[in-house]
């Protein structure tokens, strides 16, 4: 896990470096919406280079968009969960039952989120060959990377 995290952090470090370098250039700073669109367009271009069949490429992009939506829902859910956990932590009167109740709710939600993510992965895998799959794993959607990292690094008290 830690190795994965380090790789992930290293990749994000590269994104930060690019961002910093971008900030020093004369290019105008993109709004979050523009940056998200640019990231998605860049990823789509990489995907279509690897998957030359337009029908399969379209399907893969649709699945990528679904995964992006799933992440959006996750961000909303995790933000809410962490706020509730932080509120419990700060409440001197909070009981163990209240914690267990919050954890049970989160367990149920986690099961649904993970099932959806794994199902999307299966559909993507079914649309690709081993070689394409390996190449696609090198292509990155920076928006999703950055937002996942943000969730991983944010603490409940920061939210």
């Amino acid at each position: 896990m830690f190795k994965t995290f380090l790789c992930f952090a290293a990749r994000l470090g590269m994104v930060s470096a690019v961002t910093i370098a971008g900030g020093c250039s004369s290019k105008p700073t993109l709004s979050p919406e523009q940056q998200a669109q640019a990231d998605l367009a860049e990823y789509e271009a990489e995907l279509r280079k690897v998957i030359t069949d337009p029908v399969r490429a379209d399907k893969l992009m649709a699945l990528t968009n679904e995964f992006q939506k799933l992440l959006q829902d996750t961000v909303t859910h995790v933000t809410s969960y962490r706020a509730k956990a932080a509120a419990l932590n700060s409440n001197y009167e909070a009981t163990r039952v209240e914690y267990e109740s919050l954890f049970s709710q989160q367990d149920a939600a986690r099961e649904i989120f993970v099932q959806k993510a794994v199902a999307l992965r299966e559909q993507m895998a079914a649309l690709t060959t081993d070689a394409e799959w390996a190449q696609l794993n090198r292509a990155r959607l920076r928006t999703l990377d950055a937002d996942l990292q943000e969730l991983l690094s944010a603490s409940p008290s920061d939210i």
Partner: protein
Amino acid sequence: MLIGLLTAYLLLHYGSHSSGLTNQLDHTAALIKQDVADEARRKQALAIVSNMKTIATASAKQREKSFDALNKLLAKREVPASDLKLAAQPLIAEDRATTEKLLDLHFQLKTVLTASEWALVFPGPAKSPDGAKKTSRLNATVDVRFGLSAPRRAPRAAS
């Protein structure tokens, strides 16, 4: 793309409870040193936080091993969802076991600190003073807010 993203996504979910209790332990210790005047209780409280940190560190090492196994599976394009679910079980079990231990210590800490000290050490979520909101690129279009609370209360600098 998806291996890294899914790994990070699962990492987020499978450490969700224990991470909610272990974030900012150093900060908590600093606030205890600052806000708990009674030396005997302060030492007791710091010992409990130190135990929490030890448990969190051991748990992180264990989860690293479980995540390595999961990562190897994720690298295979056609791995069935049932295999992924099976590989995730140790992570879920570990998170639950760690959470139970941390909750024990959390409630032990409550027996050492007074309610007023608790309020100082765990100030909880609050509105950002400038009302500024931080919009992630991923959620730019859905306007999900991250910055819902004030920055953490910083310990006073040592004089």
